[in-house]
C-alpha cells in the first residue's frame, strides 16, 4: 500500500555504516532528446547535463544525474527550507523547456526519498542484495547507476569516498530502509 507519510524517522548507525534520510531536497526529472533541449537546460541552470552513461555533472547548487540517454534527475545539493517551497528551478525549466516543447519537466521531490549512507561497509551492504557489480563504481567518485536493491528499483550516486546517496520511491522506502537495517546488523 502506498505510504505518503515520512517513514524514515531516525538516523541509524552500525559499525562502518550510518544511514539517514536527507530532506527536504528538491528533485526533478527532465526528459528530452533534442540538441536544443540540452543547450536550453545548460543555459537555464548554468549546468551542462552529462551525456556519458552512468555519470553526473554538478554546479554550486544542483547535481544532474544521468539516468538514460534522454532522462536526467536534478536535485539540490543543499536542503531547502521546508516553509519556503522553493520551486524556482522548476518554474525556470517549465518556462524554458516545457512551454517551448523541447522536453518534459516533472517535480519528483515528494516521489523520491534520498537516503545518505556513509561508512566503509556501504558496498558490503549493497552486495547482499544487488546484482550490480560495484567493483569499478566504488572507486569512481561521481558514478551513478540505476539498479535493483532487495528487488527494489533504486538510483545510487557515489558522492564521495565512503559516502553514497540512494534514491528510492517513497512507497518502497520504508521496506527498503528496514531491509537495509536488517542487513546491516548482520554484516
Amino acid at each position, binding site marked *: 500500500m502506498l505510504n505518503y507519510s515520512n517513514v524514515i524517522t531516525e538516523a541509524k548507525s552500525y559499525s562502518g555504516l550510518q544511514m539517514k534520510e536527507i530532506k527536504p531536497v528538491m528533485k526533478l526529472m527532465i526528459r528530452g532528446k533534442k540538441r536544443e533541449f540540452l543547450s536550453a537546460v545548460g543555459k537555464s541552470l548554468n549546468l551542462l547535463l552529462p551525456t556519458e552513461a552512468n555519470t553526473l555533472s554538478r554546479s554550486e547548487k544542483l547535481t544532474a544525474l544521468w539516468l538514460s*540517454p534522454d532522462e536526467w534527475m536534478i536535485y539540490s545539493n543543499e536542503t531547502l527550507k521546508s516553509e519556503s517551497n522553493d520551486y524556482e528551478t522548476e518554474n525556470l525549466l517549465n518556462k524554458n523547456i516545457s512551454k517551448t516543447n523541447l522536453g518534459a519537466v516533472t517535480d519528483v521531490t515528494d516521489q523520491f526519498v534520498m537516503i545518505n549512507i556513509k561508512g566503509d561497509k556501504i558496498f558490503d551492504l549493497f552486495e547482499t542484495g544487488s546484482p550490480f*557489480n560495484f567493483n569499478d563504481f566504488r572507486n569512481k567518485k561521481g558514478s551513478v547507476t540505476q*539498479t*535493483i536493491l532487495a528487488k527494489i*528499483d533504486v538510483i545510487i550516486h557515489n558522492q564521495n569516498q565512503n559516502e553514497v546517496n540512494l534514491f528510492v520511491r517513497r512507497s518502497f522506502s520504508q521496506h527498503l530502509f528496514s531491509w537495509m537495517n536488517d542487513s546491516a546488523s548482520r554484516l
Partner: protein
Amino acid sequence: MFLIICPYCGEREQSEFKAGGEAHIVRPKQPTELSDDEWAEYLFMRKNIKGIQFERWNHIHGCRKWFNMVRDTSNDEIKAVYKMGEKPPSI
C-alpha cells in the same frame, strides 16, 4: 542467469532486463485487407527457434530503453546487441 551488455548502460545482470519477444516483425500496411488467419499469424505466431534468435529486450530496472539482441536460445550465448532502428547484424 547471464550478463547482458545494455547498449546504453554497459554490462548488467539479466535480472535487470525484461525479454520482449521476437524482433523485426513488421506490422502489415493494410490490416483491414487481411483475413483473420493472416492477422492471427502476424499477431500471435512466433518462430520460437532453438538456436540463433533475434529478440527485443528492455532494460526495465535501468535506463528503461528497448534494444535488440541476437541470442542462441539453446545455450544463452549472446551473439550481438544493437540499438532499436539499427540494421540487424548478419549472423
